[in-house]
């Protein structure tokens, strides 16, 4: 049977996606469906003093208008950062309080989407407006968890002051990153339909079980009463995980009007009704000796958070894992301002922090006269610098050595401003990428048929990640079936427990559960056929039979393809539920995941530190007249354990690097300070890369074996590609211009 792991299988959902038959949430239209639209607040902080819905109600087609005054059975859930499943702890439309601009204040239901939206436009609200502040004040920051156990939010090892004193050179630098928004192409949507006490919700989700668990708890319903369906998601990147107010509003509204209701959030509203990447300030003090070896490493991250939650994306946990150093101090701090609660957005702990770290390393290398790649080599380490456990595998320098070859790093003239190409200044820059291997408990059910097919069911998700395909590949490889004969069903909360599509954990965690289910099938079929009176493995001790790529093998060379063996059993079909429980998982973590939360083991366990690594190199061109910054070449070499599908993994890494270009050069949510409001709340003025921005992107995936992370040896790659890109570009800009740009995004206005 052909090997299907580490091959370039075309996505199994490709036919549906290219024909427009993949159903996204808003494509489903239950009979009798009505349309919803939100009205949102014009002020940031204050009180709603009056809300006039009369003109909205008079709009032809409008059926009902709901405000805080008249929405029965509207339930809120606890926010994620208070231990719940919700996107925030402050819930709009429960009262008159306004805590952020763009907060939902009314919900209009109508016969058409256009009349619902018009109704929302006609809502007239008056407010008692208070002062507001949209940007955090770093001076007012506090350590996360300062009132109790700081959970590693402050780390001290050795003596940083001493280490700086001993250093040949040091840098003391600050970097900033702005508010950024996920902006998936698919806008947020929710469709709710009640039939008696049974509820079905269609919405794009990264975590259907989180959604279901929160809803049943809020309404006091049995789990079996609520279905959450999300087979296809048009991009999520962290924005579609927690339960949002617009979801619970839609559920309550559907109940109130007695009909299914579909809400599609408008693109401008997407900037305020859910989460985003908080702005941040990164402070580094790093010192090294003449060879570049670090003597001191201090990183303080200050991230923005809302008035009612403390968002935790501990970037210092990642930066402190990177380079060997005897003296380390890190602090994870937040400062509040008047926005909705932010959350996690692709590489939430890594994008901002590595923009800082990898520029700081570059700055220090230049001060010392050490080649930036050699700077990383000198500080490479086999053990986690703080936790002092070995990395389960770490191929950082193999990545650098690979990419510097493909990129032609050594061909460069390292003098600032020394390279040109016609009207363009040319710069080369490099940076490290890493991403933690997060693993969560997962189950998966596999039903195999002796006629040569298999069904794989689990409540995992494909948000563009390629999960449908890799799970089919895993089953195909283990069971000895063609990939096309393995039918994967996901995105429904009724399916076996699987973790969220986030933290790049799906392939590792859920994939391992699929693997386990297949191995159980092998054992169960082996037990059955060994007890039969006939057959190649008849009478063989089942404990001695192994499943090897779809073939059952005995100790003395006997063998039989699994599908044949299965066909010979009385039922001719078998079903097993697989489990993935990493030894480092605690009962608490397992229970959390089964309850709809995110009980994560890793990246650091008592035994090992688990990270994927990469090295990125960017060539930037800066036009001498327009000062435009372009990236004609971006190379990345990555080592992330087993690569399940070379085609989709390539796309993930490449897509991450494209995000990285956007983070570096384009993405910023602009603000109006007096009114604490986001300004470029659309996808024309909020810039993300267009096709013409992306030219040569080369992705290399190195071989790496890791037997500790999970049975598949897989590490997460969905976010890895973004991590090193911004710093590689910033370092290249410095090489070209001599300007060190420490605030994202880097734009013409910074160079002119």
């Amino acid at each position, binding site marked *: 049977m052909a090997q299907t792991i580490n091959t370039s299988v075309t996505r199994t959902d490709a036919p549906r996606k*290219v024909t427009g038959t993949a159903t996204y949430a808003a494509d489903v239209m239950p009979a009798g469906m009505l349309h919803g639209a939100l009205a949102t607040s014009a002020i940031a902080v204050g009180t709603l003093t009056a809300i006039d819905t009369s003109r909205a109600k008079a709009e032809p087609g409008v059926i009902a208008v709901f405000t805080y005054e008249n929405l029965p059975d509207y339930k809120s859930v606890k926010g994620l950062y208070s231990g719940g499943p919700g996107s925030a702890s402050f819930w709009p439309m429960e009262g008159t309080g306004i805590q952020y601009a763009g907060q939902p204040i009314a919900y209009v239901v109508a016969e058409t989407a256009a009349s619902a939206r018009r109704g929302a436009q006609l809502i007239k609200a008056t407010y008692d407006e208070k002062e507001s502040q949209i940007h955090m004040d770093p001076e007012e920051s506090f350590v996360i968890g300062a009132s109790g156990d700081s959970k590693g939010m402050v780390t001290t090892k050795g003596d940083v002051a001493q280490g700086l004193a001993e250093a040949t050179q040091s840098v003391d630098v600050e970097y900033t990153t702005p508010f950024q928004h996920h902006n998936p192409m698919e806008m947020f949507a929710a469709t709710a339909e009640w039939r008696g006490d049974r509820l079905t919700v269609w919405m794009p989700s990264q975590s259907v079980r989180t959604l279901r668990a929160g809803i049943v708890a809020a309404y006091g319903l049995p789990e079996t009463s609520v279905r959450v369906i999300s087979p296809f998601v048009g991009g999520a990147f962290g924005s579609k995980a927690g339960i949002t107010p617009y979801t619970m509003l839609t559920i309550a509204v559907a109940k109130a009007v007695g009909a299914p209701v579909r809400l599609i959030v408008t693109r401008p509203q997407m900037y305020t009704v859910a989460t985003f990447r908080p702005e941040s300030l990164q402070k580094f003090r790093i010192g090294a000796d003449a060879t570049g070896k670090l003597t001191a490493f201090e990183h303080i991250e200050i991230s923005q958070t809302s008035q009612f939650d403390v968002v935790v994306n501990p970037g210092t946990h990642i930066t402190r894992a990177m380079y060997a150093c005897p003296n380390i101090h890190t602090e994870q701090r937040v400062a509040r301002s008047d926005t909705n609660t932010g959350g996690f957005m692709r590489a939430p702990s890594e994008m901002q922090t590595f923009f800082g770290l990898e520029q700081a390393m570059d700055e220090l290398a230049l001060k010392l006269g050490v080649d930036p790649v050699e700077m990383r080599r000198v500080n490479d380490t086999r053990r986690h610098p703080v936790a002092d456990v070995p990395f389960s595998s770490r191929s950082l320098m193999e990545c650098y050595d690979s990419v510097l070859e493909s990129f032609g790093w050594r061909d460069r003239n390292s003098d600032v401003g020394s390279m040109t190409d016609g009207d363009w200044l040319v710069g080369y820059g490099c940076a490290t990428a890493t991403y933690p291997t997060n693993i969560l408990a997962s189950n998966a059910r596999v039903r195999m048929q002796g006629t040569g097919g298999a069904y794989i069911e689990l409540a995992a998700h494909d948000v563009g990640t390629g999960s449908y395909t890799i799970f089919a590949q895993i089953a195909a490889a283990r069971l000895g079936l063609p990939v096309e004969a393995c039918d994967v069903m996901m995105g429904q909360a009724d399916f076996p427990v699987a973790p969220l599509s986030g933290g790049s954990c799906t392939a590792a965690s859920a994939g391992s559960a699929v693997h386990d289910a297949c191995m159980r099938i092998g054992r169960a079929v082996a037990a059955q056929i060994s007890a039969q009176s006939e057959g190649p493995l008849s009478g063989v001790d089942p404990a001695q039979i192994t499943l090897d790529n779809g073939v059952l093998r005995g100790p003395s060379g006997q063998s039989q393809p699994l599908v044949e063996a299965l066909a010979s059993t009385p039922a001719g079909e078998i079903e097993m539920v697989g489990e993935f429980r990493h030894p480092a998982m605690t009962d608490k973590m397992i229970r959390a995941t089964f309850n709809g939360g995110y009980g994560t083991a890793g990246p650091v366990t008592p035994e090992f530190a688990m990270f994927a690594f990469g090295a990125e190199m960017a060539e930037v061109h800066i036009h001498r007249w327009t000062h435009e910054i372009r990236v004609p070449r971006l190379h990345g070499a990555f080592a992330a354990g087993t690569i399940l599908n070379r085609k989709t993994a390539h796309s993930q890494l490449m897509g991450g690097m494209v995000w990285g270009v956007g983070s570096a050069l384009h993405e910023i949510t602009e603000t109006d300070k007096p009114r604490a409001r986001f300004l470029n709340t659309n996808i024309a003025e909020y810039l993300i890369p267009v096709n013409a921005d992306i030219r040569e992107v080369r992705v290399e995936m190195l071989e790496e074996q890791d037997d500790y992370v999970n049975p598949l040896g897989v590490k997460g790659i969905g976010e890895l590609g973004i991590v090193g890109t911004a710093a590689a570009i910033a370092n290249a800009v410095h090489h070209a211009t001599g300007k060190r740009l420490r605030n994202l995004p880097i734009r013409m206005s910074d160079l002119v």
Partner: protein
Amino acid sequence: MTNKTAHPKAGLSRRGFLGTTGAFGTALGIGTDKAAAQQSGPDVAAGDQPKITLNVNGQRRTLTVEPRTTLVEALRDTLGLTGTKIGCNQGQCGACTVLLDDRPVNSCLTLALSVDGAEVVTVEGLADPAGKLHPMQQAFAEHDAFQCGYCTPGQILSAIACIDEGHASDAAEIREYMSGNLCRCGAYPNIVAAVETVRDSKEG
């Protein structure tokens, strides 16, 4: 245009409208715009729900719209053709791209009433009746020119127009033309490769 006060001339009378038609009908000649040639009928009032006819993927469809109904919502919510996606509803992302009388346009900025009689091709109209994929659909699948797939219908239609309009001579030209279709997953290089494959197979 401007917010100036109205010109004192009175509004249009029905009699005047009919008279105008008679005097100028021949002078207009045959328009290059199919919709213009077929549009006929009286004014539509704000509360009206007129019927329009569109040729969608080779099939004549008659549907009821409001004046403010956009083509994308007519296709999706009225005709149930949900292959065309709404990514922003403001003409800023290209996810809603359809071919309208052979031109790629953002259907979210197109008023359905204003294109009465037009030919529309959506992603549902690309595969042949037996289900054989259009070469561009096939190329997108093979080159992994998508990830989440949400922008894909719009990308494919723009890609077809890119070649048909002669804007695929090299990678730079393809990239520029395809920049009207945003892809947040970052599949751009693979999209370009898919377009090149189809272009080369046509030439070869």
